[in-house]
């Protein structure tokens, strides 16, 4: 009965969800899209995935040890693995191994631990690493390949896969498979003055886009599987609907609007929603609890901001895809949102002043009968 006497404040019962459990649920929700990505792009994709995740785990353990804390406890919350997982999903699947290593180290050490570890970082570590990689190694980060499903004859075998990832040697017969992403292709073509319909011809098929059978990053192409994962997280109450709904809604609204104004220049909502990293961004990246606002109204604002920025960058910016930049920019204003968008306090008005009481209290109209 020794600890009965020590003052411990309530509550003396707790909900079951823990930090590690939350991270585990998110990873679980990512599994279908990840398996699909590995199947679609073959052994090199799996190699890159393994390299990125292990780098993140090692970087986390190392940083925490340097800080004099227990590595096992830090790894136990699964946040480093999740960071690596999300980063891997946004990389070109046949990128060389060192992209995963540099990205993983940057994400965990600079993106997270420098700020003080989990919960302290201002920016989403995975997106920070991705943007750094994109700027530092533009060639490797924009070399996409057409799908090479594992089950398809001619796709690289296990040894060939190792060679692609670790030596950068692509078998000659596979040289021709590199391809542009839909968004990259559109940017080039529209920039050249091609009409949208012509540019989309043979490139965009909604059903294909839903399933993700196209060139793109490792596992963010299958809109359907990402959506399913996201819905799972909502059902399990790991994420709220506010950020995904606001982000996708804003993007769809803007795309439809601009498509109506100039149908041959601006792609419609379908193209925007089903291509690139929007789905992954809306359900898995922007919803990162650490770097998004903590109030529901703040999250609506945050999601809408992400949607707006994605559209602006895609349509008017220099890069074909803007999810990472949009999320990072909104991360930067999250503290501001949290400062200004607060819930109304009971008994007070929205400005925090006590509510006034009507002069004469009177009973409600209803009378018990």
């Amino acid at each position, binding site marked *: *009965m020794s*600890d*009965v*006497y*020590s*003052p*411990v*404040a*309530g*509550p*003396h*019962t*707790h*909900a*079951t*969800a*823990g*930090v590690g*459990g*939350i991270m585990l649920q998110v990873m679980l929700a990512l599994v279908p899209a990840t398996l699909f990505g590995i199947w679609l792009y073959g052994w090199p994709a799996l190699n890159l995935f393994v390299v990125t995740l292990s780098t993140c785990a090692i970087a986390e353990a190392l940083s925490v040890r340097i800080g004099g804390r227990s590595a096992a*406890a830090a790894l136990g*919350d699964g*946040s480093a693995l999740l960071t690596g997982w999300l980063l891997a999903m946004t990389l070109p699947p046949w990128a060389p191994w060192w992209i995963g290593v540099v990205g993983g180290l940057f994400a965990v050490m600079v993106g997270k631990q420098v700020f003080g*570890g*989990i*919960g*302290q970082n201002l920016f989403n570590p995975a997106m920070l690493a991705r943007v750094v990689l994109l700027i530092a190694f533009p060639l490797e980060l924009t070399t996409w390949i057409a799908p090479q499903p594992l089950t398809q004859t001619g796709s690289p075998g296990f040894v060939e896969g190792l060679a692609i990832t670790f030596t950068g040697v692509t078998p000659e017969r596979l040289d021709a498979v590199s391809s542009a992403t839909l968004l990259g292709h559109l940017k080039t073509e529209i920039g050249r003055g091609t009409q949208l319909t012509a540019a989309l011809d043979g490139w965009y098929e909604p059903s294909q886009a839903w399933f993700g059978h196209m060139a793109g990053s490792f596992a963010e192409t299958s809109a359907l599987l990402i959506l399913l994962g996201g819905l799972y997280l909502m059902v399990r109450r790991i994420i*709220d609907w506010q950020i995904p709904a606001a982000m996708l809604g804003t993007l769809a609204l803007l795309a439809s609007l601009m498509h109506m104004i100039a149908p041959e220049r601006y792609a419609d909502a379908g193209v925007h929603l089903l291509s690139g990293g929007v789905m992954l961004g809306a359900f898995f990246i922007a919803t990162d*609890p*650490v*770097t*998004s*606002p*903590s*109030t*529901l109204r703040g*999250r609506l604002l945050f999601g809408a901001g992400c949607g707006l920025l994605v559209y602006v960058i895609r349509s008017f910016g220099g890069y074909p895809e803007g999810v990472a930049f949009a999320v990072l920019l909104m991360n930067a204003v999250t503290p501001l949102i*949290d400062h200004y968008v*607060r*819930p*109304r*306090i*009971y*008994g*007070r008005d929205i400005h*925090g002043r*006590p*509510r*006034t*009481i009507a002069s004469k*209290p*009177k*009973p*409600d109209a*209803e*009378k*018990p*009968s």
Partner: protein
Amino acid sequence: MILRLFRIRGGVHPPEHKHPTASRPIEACPLPARLYVPLQQHIGAPAEPVVQVGEKVLKGQLIGHAQGPVSAPVHAPTSGTVTTIAPHAAPHPSGLPVVCVTIEPDGEDRWESAPAETDPFLLTPREIGERVAAAGIVGMGGAAFPSAVKLGAATRTPIHTLIINGGECEPYLTCDDRLMRERAVEVIDGVRIMLHGTQATRALIAIEENKPSAIRELKRAARIDERVMVVRIPALYPMGSEKHMIQTLTGRELPPGRLPADLGLIVHNVATAFAVHRAVRFGRPLISRIVTVGGGALREPRNREVLIGTPIEDLVECCGGFAEEPARLLMGGPMMGQVIPWNAPVVKGTSGVIALTREEIHIGETRACIRCGRCVSACPVGLMPLEMASRIRADQFDGAVDHGLNDCISCGSCAFVCPASIPLVQFFNFAKGELVARKTAQDKSQVLKLMAEQRQARLEREAREKAEAAARKKAEREAAKRAEQEAAARETGT
């Protein structure tokens, strides 16, 4: 007739664990070897003892009378001898002692007076208030605010609605549930007495939907008075909080620093209504209450009718003792209850004694906040607990107050849902205490400053007076000298 209910913000659904005690009738508890009756069992000033050590007391006899406007008297729970009036362990998280009157029962349980029934509806509201005050009735939901003070507010502000709180939203606790099921007629009588005492036009008895039998029993008993209405409210923690019960039933919010009476409302617990029935109709003071003795560490969880002052150990003993060593022993429910020392007595505000196992507490190791916002969504007041806690951690109390620390009702919903197991409530308790301590220190410092200034002024005045006195004396001396000289001169002159 259906009353329109209003939604409250946030809230949580902790596992109820009410079944083990809800299905069994209330049982009495054997007379313990000693009763420790604290002189302070309520909010306000402690009672002043009116008995001597060695004195024989009878059941229901006054042993401590109320002091000041907010206080409550204390009565002997049984007949016996006062053995000591000394500090004894209190049911308080600090484990510090308070002054208790220790009574050794003589086993006769002899009342001070024979029972005499009066018709409460022939009394004036003022007389009802006086009887409630004399019976030492305090809020029995846990806050222990003297009930007569609340009833007395009705004489200053008109009250239109009496709200009877039968929410019992805390897990494990079923004492109000059992009371309503077994003594519905008495509860309704108490409610009607309070209606008469406040001159309110209606009474709303709010009961959570997870207590269908209690709702049924009370509805049946309430048929005799059309002003009394039983309302089924959603089962959601912290529905039993006064502020949230008012919001649920009326849609109105209580601004900070205001009382329900300002809205024409008054809120009392069902157990208080029962105590009022006993006190006003039969002239019996509050000397016992129903306590839920529960928790996974207990062998036979039960609702017991217990004399005030019964040591927790005796209470646990009469419920079969512990099946395993409890990880925490609580007074009240697991959400807002407090850890208490094991030899503390049952007091008027004790709704439950809960012995929890480690598995039931289910608290993980505290981790860093991941800003998931679950606490923000769960807060029934609309605060941002994570922001408040991060500021308190850095000792930035002003920042925490700016985020609404003073509006926090300590319900624990935030800490309940926190996936990082951060002791949010303790952070807020600490900061609230620190703010009070600072205010006290500041007040004292003001007093001391004034005293130092007065002393300084006095010293200066004394110095000045001394100097003046010295100067006067000198002047007198000189005048005398001069006079002497003049006299001498005159003498020589003549």
